[in-house]
């Protein structure tokens, strides 16, 4: 799939989005330090593309996805959404009442196939409720459309009278997809939709997502930590580290030659397809930086193998390295980092 960036219009523009937790004054007088889960993220998603968001656990990618779907209220920043009528609307500041018409356009698919479906509701209720809540259908019409959706995601229409406990993980994920499709959204935030599934089932779900995208001209924000999945599915990828985007590029460019040391480390951590190959991951030392107490300078410097004095004191900005490629590193020009091909060679 070729990135349609040159021709496509932006559908979502995230501008300096922040989500901080805590940082409030306690009644005893103590002030807790804010946890900066998402700390000034900026990128643009174009209509019809699959935008990948990768990073290790706790880097804020799920929080960012939930802010964009407005399951969470962002602390600061803008989410500029362009509906089909051509206006630009900032979803970040709308009240729940004002938000309701645009809720339909941005839907979500969740990671956990168990907790994402209400165990006390039948599939008809689970998939039909979005339509009923938004006044899209009622009565028999709901059942008809739920049946269509179930068949579209590869399940049988008769299943609608059953409860979620009767389905396997992959089937439940299909149900979750059907629920997201119920409102005919334009953007779907996929929060690690396949990471809880078996590899064989993962492929089925990914293919289903691709087919649906082609059929309905969907735009995906695809959150993942599995780089293989991202390479397969995404047109462009943003790499996140403690709440910030450290690198953003087209998928092929990113995998061919990463610009940020963190991206290189992530790629080297992917286990090789050949189990006998001696892989030498460039393992990072230490843990993800504490989002409540970030290190000075570049947030990645305590774990970075290429760290120099400047990295310790001066915080790098996200800058455009070449057209469409963004990086948050002082040394992007001088470093010559290894892409997946070199890493595979080094391991062989």
């Amino acid at each position, binding site marked *: 799939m070729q990135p349609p960036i040159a021709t496509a219009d932006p559908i979502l523009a995230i501008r300096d989005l922040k989500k901080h937790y805590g940082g409030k004054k306690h009644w005893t007088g103590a002030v807790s330090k804010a946890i900066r889960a998402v700390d000034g993220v900026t990128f643009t998603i174009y209509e019809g593309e699959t935008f990948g968001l990768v990073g290790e656990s706790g880097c804020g990618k799920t929080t960012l996805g939930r802010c964009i779907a407005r399951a969470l209220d962002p602390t600061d920043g803008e989410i500029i959404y362009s509906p089909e009528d051509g206006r630009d609307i900032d979803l970040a500041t709308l009240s729940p009442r004002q938000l309701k018409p645009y809720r339909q356009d941005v839907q979500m698919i969740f990671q956990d196939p168990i907790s*994402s479906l209400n165990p006390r509701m039948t599939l008809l209720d689970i998939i039909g409720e979005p339509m009923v809540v938004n006044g899209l259908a009622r009565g028999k019409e709901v059942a008809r459309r739920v049946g269509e959706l179930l068949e579209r995601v590869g399940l049988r229409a008769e299943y609608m009278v059953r409860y979620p406990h009767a389905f396997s993980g992959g089937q439940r994920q299909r149900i979750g997809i059907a629920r997201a499709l119920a409102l005919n959204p334009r953007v779907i935030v996929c929060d690690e939709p396949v990471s809880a599934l078996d590899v064989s089932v993962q492929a089925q779900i990914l293919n289903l997502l691709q087919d649906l995208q082609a059929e309905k001209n969907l735009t995906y924000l695809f959150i993942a930590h599995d780089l293989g999945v991202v390479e397969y599915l995404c047109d462009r990828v943003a790499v996140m580290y403690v709440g910030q985007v450290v690198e953003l590029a087209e998928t092929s460019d990113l995998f061919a030659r990463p610009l940020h040391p963190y991206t290189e480390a992530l790629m080297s951590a992917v286990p090789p397809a050949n189990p006998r190959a001696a892989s030498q991951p460039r393992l990072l030392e230490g843990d993800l930086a504490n989002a409540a107490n970030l290190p000075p300078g570049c947030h990645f410097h305590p774990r970075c193998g290429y760290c120099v004095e400047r990295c310790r004191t001066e915080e790098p900005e996200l800058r455009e390295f070449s057209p469409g490629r963004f990086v948050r590193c002082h040394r992007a020009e001088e470093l010559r980092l290894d892409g997946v091909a070199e890493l595979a060679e080094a391991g062989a």
Partner: protein
Amino acid sequence: MTAEATTPVAPAPVATSDGVAVRIISPRRLMWWKFRKHKLAVASAIFLILAYLATIFAGFVAPYDPASRSRNLYAPPQGINFVDETGQFHLQPFVYGWKMTRDLKTLSPVYVADTTQKFPLRLFVQGEPYKLFGLIDADRHLFGVDEGYFHLAGTDHFGRDLFTRLVYGAQISLSVGIISVFLSLVLGLLIGGISGLYGGWIDNFIQRLIEAIIAIPTIPLWLGLAAAVPRDWPPLYQYFAILVVLSLISWTSTARVARGRFLALREQDFVTAARVYGASQTRIIAKHLVPNLMSYVIVTLTLAIPGIIIGETALSFLGVGLKVPTVSWGVLLQESQKVQIIQFYPWLWIGPAACVVSVVLAFNFVGDGARDAADPFSR
């Protein structure tokens, strides 16, 4: 799993397009199947249902009126016999009458079975009149004797039938548990729900309040509150006062469970999904939170009932709860707080004590079974 655990009670199979018959199994049915596997819980549930039925039809089940006196004071339980003194077998069970003598040293009555008096037992006998449900005049009793007397659990110092008094006492003791638990369900869901949904200082305040209430030892607090109930109130008022006193403390555990479940459910993805597709807060509470919360709350309540039954018994036993002429198991125990009763007429305290113990145990078993069955995610 046995065969009968899977086959019955499922709804009629639904034919699908490919001809395969399937059954739709709701979470409720799954819970019921799981509960059924806990044999002890099922047996206890049946026992409790029978016990509650007996309290509803107390006049019918009890052979006498709780206040009517016989001439046999402190008579021990009469054994039911099928074989008479000559070794002959009778299909119809009978009891022997008592011959009373006095112990010449202590002057206490000593009863020996009088084999010349035989009272055959019958079902649905005509006996003392009573009002069914307090409304309908009736005089049929479930079992009894046409002539003579039958005291299954013995008699007390006025010659009142203890079995009858146990049945009537169950009306108070068992209903206290249910009604008070219902009160604490309402209070607990409401307060716990507010606490879990709003969070912040409201949550903090409610949780600290609950801790403060729990920190006070229960019995002294009950004693204090129960002692504040005016002693000249009619028995019905006293009963409700005791109910309120008991519920004032027991709502705390329900509130905590409700709060915890609200907090946990609020973070579940299906609630996030509902928020993302624009469901209102009321809808999320009614359709997504409360249905998933009820099974847990019901389990806590089942486990809370025995505590309340014991609470009522303890209060009455200590003399600050219900008082004579009201009959409850606690009152019966309180009446037998005398050395000579404990030593010479043990049936007077063994009866009510056995009732309390078996009901409390049964509730605990049912609660255990319900807890195992309640989790819809564990399969």
